[in-house]
């Protein structure tokens, strides 16, 4: 076995369908800029990618997120595939990496966020304080105008429309990294605005 190709393939994933020769040819054609071959390749590898993600993650809800994230990563590193080499170890490494990242992220969120079953009881009737609600809405609208268009777009897609980073990336054309940065900066700017309003 080639010393640079020793990545272990999950057992379940080995059982996934797919013609390796076809995948190699499609990916090589995709590297040459063939969009149709690339689309066919990405479609063909989906069951395998899901099997690898499922093997790594216990949480079924995360699998599709991980697959989408892995597709975006694959897109960025598609030049590292060497034509003629097996696709599966290369692909499994990408999906595994994104699955590990997702599991860590999920673990961090689980450790820091708590579910408050009675939180809804602390929300007053929306009609109870119409003046304050109108002021808050106005204030928020004003602060939103302070954001850059990319920050506003990232915030709307990820936080308001609750899209995954992968979906938001596909919808906006911003990279996952850029989305994360823009959401972070937008929230920080809004928070500063709220603090300023509170001080006034």
């Amino acid at each position: 076995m080639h010393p640079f190709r020793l990545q272990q393939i999950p057992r379940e994933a080995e059982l996934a369908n797919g013609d390796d020769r076809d995948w190699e040819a499609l990916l090589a054609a995709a590297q040459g800029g063939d969009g149709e071959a690339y689309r066919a390749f990405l479609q063909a590898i989906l069951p395998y990618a899901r099997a690898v993600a499922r093997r790594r993650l216990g949480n079924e809800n995360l699998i599709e997120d991980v697959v989408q994230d892995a597709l975006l990563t694959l897109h960025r590193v598609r030049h590292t595939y060497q034509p003629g080499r097996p696709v599966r170890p290369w692909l499994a490494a990408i999906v595994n990496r994104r699955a590990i990242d997702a599991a860590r992220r999920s673990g961090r969120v689980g450790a820091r966020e708590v579910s408050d079953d009675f939180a809804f009881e602390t929300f007053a009737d929306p009609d109870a304080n119409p003046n304050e609600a109108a002021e808050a809405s106005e204030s928020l609208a004003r602060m939103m105008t302070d954001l850059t268009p990319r920050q506003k777009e990232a915030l709307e897609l990820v936080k308001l429309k609750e899209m995954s980073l992968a979906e938001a990336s596909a919808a906006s054309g911003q990279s996952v990294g850029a989305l994360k940065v823009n959401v972070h900066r937008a929230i920080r700017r809004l928070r500063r605005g709220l603090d300023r309003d509170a001080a006034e």
Partner: protein
Amino acid sequence: MSARATEDVIAALAAEAAPVRPLAPPLARASRLLLVLGLLSAVTIAVLGDLDGMMARYAGRETMMMAETGAMLATAILALFGAFALSVPGGSRAWLVAPLPTFLLWIGLSSAGCYDLMLRRGLGGWGAVGDGTCFIFLLSASLGVGVPVLWLLSRARPIEPLAVATLGGLGVAATAAALLQFFHPFAVTVIDLVFHLLAVLIIVTTAALLRRLALRPG
């Protein structure tokens, strides 16, 4: 998330399928880098190195010197091969520990050299002899070697940037340490060795901290 959204992602990616040039195999890329580094180092040593001084310092301990330099070079080679192997998806994780035996051998032989010096010189073999020049040499040489190494590694957009940066940093530090052997104006004392190790730690840590900036991970 829905399978429908995955279809949308695929459609978006397929629409952006610009041609890309496949990278050469990592083994070949690492070999080319090491060849260039070897040639440049040989020229630098031939022009600026103090070979006579080095032989005088190691008089009677030539085997030890060769073993120590060999361990440094082996660490550099294994760490750089490992960094390139792991910079592309599917590289064996065995590369993470591959440089460890030679790194330990390097530290062990350097420590043995210090111990030997202490036996011969007593307390004179303990304190620092250098004025920090070697420390600066290690950092400067690492900067000179490290920038092209990190640039080459970044071309793969590694999906495991921490592992790649750490191995790359170790390879760079070991290369600088091997080079220093040919420029060292004195025998290494315990304190000198501590500073050497500190420099190695700084180089590896800096590479690890700069991984996102330097490696543009995928």
